[in-house]
């Protein structure tokens, strides 16, 4: 673009003003990156959910347990390829504030149901063979500095043991990771058998079931088939896709997307004001220069394009810098806060949308000054001198 040098020089005619404007743009897009990452975290479960997995919970309330006998009945429902279960342990490690999720599960079945979880085969074996074994997500293990072979005690807040104690002891047999950079690994898994045997009450129940539908089966039909089986029983079920299940939680927080959009709206409104003002000043102070361009033979629409490009260029510099810094910060936050708020992630869609925003904002800020430049009457402008 042969005009680039010209546009660049003009953009920097007042260095301080341009730098400050770029900084404003930078901050706006940094905020965009952070807020979109937070918004993403609230819906991340939904983004990762496998389309072929369904979740079965008690129809009245998630916190009501389901009979363990349901497992085999669900397995024989048409359209169900495999089924396993999990429960909520709800304990903490050392400090009551360290309450990360812990699930008693069927070891091998669970990892088969969640193939995105990766664990070295020998660790999986060791865990499967150790009743009081525990596997932890790599973020969790990193956070607490655990090593394989450590003895990890958990304090139960719900599930007291039959012997009256509340301390459950485990051996750390493995650390699992996920191959999806968006997924969190801030939780742990242990044996359902140990849980069932040692807990003081609630025996014969599980928290919820997870099933995989057979290839080609319709999720809605399978869900209905499962629920129909248990209709009118003491424990009616509600089956939904994993995605719907996770979404129902983030929805309960309130319309996070709306809040984020509103805040960003305020931020970008201000941004447009700042940049718009900068561009307006920039054009105002070089009316005669623009007139000279026209006398030299530059067509009106080229003059418009030059001014608009200047506005977009400024937005681009600030915007890319802001996004870049934002991306780095999100990475950092994701690794430190991973256990508390999993799924902090600047998605490619958000980055792409940001690019669109940059161009749109640059255009919006520059359009009126650009039109003014386009419509400039040479004779009047030169006469003004």
């Amino acid at each position, binding site marked *: 673009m*042969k005009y680039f040098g*010209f546009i660049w020089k*003009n953009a*920097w005619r007042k260095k301080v003003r341009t730098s400050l404007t770029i900084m404003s743009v930078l901050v706006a897009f940094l905020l965009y990156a952070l807020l979109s990452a937070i918004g993403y975290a609230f819906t991340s479960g939904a983004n990762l959910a496998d389309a072929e997995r369904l979740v079965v919970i008690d129809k009245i309330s998630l916190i009501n347990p389901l009979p363990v006998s349901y497992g085999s009945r669900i397995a024989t429902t048409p359209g169900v390829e495999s089924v396993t279960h999990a429960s909520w342990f709800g304990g903490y490690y050392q400090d009551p504030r360290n309450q990360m999720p812990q699930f008693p599960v069927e070891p091998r079945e669970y990892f088969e149901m969640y193939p995105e979880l990766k664990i070295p085969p020998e660790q999986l074996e060791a865990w499967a063979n150790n009743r009081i074994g525990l596997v932890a997500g790599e973020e969790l293990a990193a956070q607490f500095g655990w090593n394989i072979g450590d003895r990890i005690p958990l304090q139960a807040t719900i599930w007291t043991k039959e012997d009256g104690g509340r301390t459950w002891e485990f051996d750390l047999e493995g650390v699992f990771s996920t191959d999806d950079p968006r997924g969190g690994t801030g939780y742990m898994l242990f044996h359902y058998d140990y849980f069932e045997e040692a807990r003081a009450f609630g025996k014969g129940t599980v928290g919820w079931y997870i099933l995989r539908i057979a290839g080609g089966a319709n999720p809605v039909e399978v869900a209905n088939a499962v629920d129909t089986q248990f209709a009118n029983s003491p424990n009616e079920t509600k089956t939904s896709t994993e995605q719907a299940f996770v979404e129902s939680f983030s929805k309960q927080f309130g319309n996070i997307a709306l809040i984020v959009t509103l805040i960003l709206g305020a931020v970008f409104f201000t941004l447009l004001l700042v940049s718009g003002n900068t561009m307006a000043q920039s054009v105002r102070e070089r009316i005669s220069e623009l007139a000279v361009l026209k*006398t030299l*033979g530059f*067509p009106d*629409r080229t003059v418009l394009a030059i001014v608009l490009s200047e506005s977009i260029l400024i937005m681009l510099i600030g915007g890319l810098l802001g996004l870049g810094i934002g991306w780095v910060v999100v990475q950092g936050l994701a690794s430190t806060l991973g256990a508390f708020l999993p799924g902090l992630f600047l998605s490619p869609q958000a980055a792409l949308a940001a690019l669109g925003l940059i161009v749109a904002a640059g255009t919006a800020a520059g359009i009126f000054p650009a039109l003014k430049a386009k419509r400039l009457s*040479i004779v009047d402008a*030169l006469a003004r001198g």
Partner: protein
Amino acid sequence: MDILAELKGVSRVYQKGKERVEVLHELDLGIPEGDFLALMGPSGSGKTTLLNLLGGLDKPTSGTVSVGGAELSSMSNSQLSHWRSTNVGFIFQFYNLLPVLTARKNVELPLLLTKLGSAERSKRADIALSIVGLADRAKHYPRELSGGQEQRVAIARAVVSDPTLLLCDEPTGDLDRETADEILTLLQILNREHGKTIVMVTHDAQAAEYANRVLHVDKGKLEARVEA
């Protein structure tokens, strides 16, 4: 000699609210190729308007303007833009250089409208600068140049795309006597050695002496007979 530019029955009327201001009144003018014409007259006489019409910056209310065979009065704005870029060079009283560009880049500006590559543009700008004697100041910014030097850069810019017609509006108005003479000498060289047709508006009689002929403009009319 061929007529390069011709105005026939040209009037220019401005409407200011209810007032009708007639700046030029049924004017005829012929300018032969290679001419160096000075237009003199009191302020408000319409001489700048005349210059603007010749350069396609303005259109007559009635009458025709043709330059080099092109009928300017019937061309659209974008056609006029394009025509200007190859046919006319302007020189203003206050130089009107772009402060953010170096001398060389200022001179290259009209060439951005052509298909020339960057190396070629640079070369031609340097040639133009050497014609005006400023080859060694190519990388200086306007603020680093004296008034006379700035005007010379402006002249280089005006000739870089090799136009046939140069239009100057009070080119020495802001300069001291000595520098003004240098500039006017340069214009003469451009006229006599490079064959440029020059129309110069000035209120300075001494400047007018550098021209081949002088016409007076008053109240929108020309005094002194038109030479064909």
